[in-house]
């Protein structure tokens, strides 16, 4: 019996070794075939992420310091400050700052030819937002509807909507608020240089981009935000 146990142990080890060897041979690690520039690109995006995380950590540290420096009775106001800040980040407050105004209008050619003026398509609007995301901006309003990270641009019953509200037919305005006037200039230059104009022109639309202005106001998004992933825990459960 003892002999059998020994053989069992030995066979167990052999089986394990064979299985590991099989794993290694069958599923070799994927070779890294990126070239120098691809790796550099990845590195730069990681560095960007790193600096973003660092700045986030710094702001959170500041919040912690505020909490600590305030006395017990003032904790409420510190909490309120945080809530306000979060509301601000979510785009629920009105925002005033430097920025640019973009007018979306039907192209003069389509007017001359008497073509029907059609609503902007969700694809084009999404493309525009993506193009805008190349640069830094702090608030965006599309035809009076505040666009946040939680917003959706989609087709509902044939109408293009932002946050579930119809976007009116051109002409309408898009407002972009930035943190600084320099950022506003960057948005302005990027949009001017981008090929998005061609995409708009294919849909018989043109973009009129204003020079960066000192003060622009966008409205907050007053709707309640429904979080579908996180649910509140009921008390007593």
């Amino acid at each position: 019996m003892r002999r059998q146990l020994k053989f069992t142990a030995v066979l167990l080890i052999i089986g394990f070794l064979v299985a590991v060897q099989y794993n290694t041979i069958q599923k070799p690690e994927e070779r890294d075939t990126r070239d120098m520039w691809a790796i550099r690109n990845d590195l730069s995006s990681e560095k960007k992420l790193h600096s973003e995380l660092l700045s986030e950590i710094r702001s959170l540290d500041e919040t912690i310091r505020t909490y600590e420096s305030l006395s017990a009775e003032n904790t409420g106001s510190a909490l309120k400050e945080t809530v306000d800040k979060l509301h601000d980040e979510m785009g629920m407050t009105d925002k005033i700052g430097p920025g640019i105004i973009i007018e979306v209008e039907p192209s003069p050619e389509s007017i001359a030819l008497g073509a029907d003026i059609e609503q902007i398509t969700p694809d084009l609007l999404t493309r525009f937002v993506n193009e805008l995301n190349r640069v830094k901006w702090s608030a965006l309003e599309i035809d009076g509807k505040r666009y946040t990270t939680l917003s959706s641009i989609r087709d509902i019953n044939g109408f293009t909507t932002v946050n579930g509200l119809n976007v009116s037919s051109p002409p309408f305005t898009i407002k972009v608020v930035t943190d600084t006037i320099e950022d506003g200039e960057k948005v302005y230059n990027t949009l001017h240089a981008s090929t998005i104009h061609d995409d708009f022109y294919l849909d018989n639309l043109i973009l009129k981009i204003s020079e960066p202005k000192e003060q622009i106001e966008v409205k907050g998004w007053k709707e309640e935000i429904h979080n579908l992933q996180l649910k509140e825990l009921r008390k007593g459960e």
Partner: protein
Amino acid sequence: MWLPLLGLILGVAFGLLSDIQIPQVYSNYLSIAILAALDSLFGGVRASLQQVYDDKIFITGFFFNIVLAIGLAFLGVHLGLDLYLAAIFAFGVRLFQNIAIIRRILLANWTEKSKNPEANSGNERK
């Protein structure tokens, strides 16, 4: 008979399910280790069939052979000499010899059993 087989199945299942992988560089060492382990195993089976089985020799031989084979291969890599071939040769030849001996013993047992089944069944009744 069944217990060692169960051990083998358990070992393979554990290895496959745990999805452990070793770097490609070391896969040579592992294959030599497997060869050494198999050599010890068949040596053990042969010894037990020849009634000369010893626990200590089997267990120490098992681990010592594995370590020796890996060490030899490692040394070979560092000396720029294919020493692992020596291990493969030695274990391979021994493996075949052991399996041949096991086959002969099993064959002899089987022919003996089929020649006088009465004697065997009589033995069993005892």
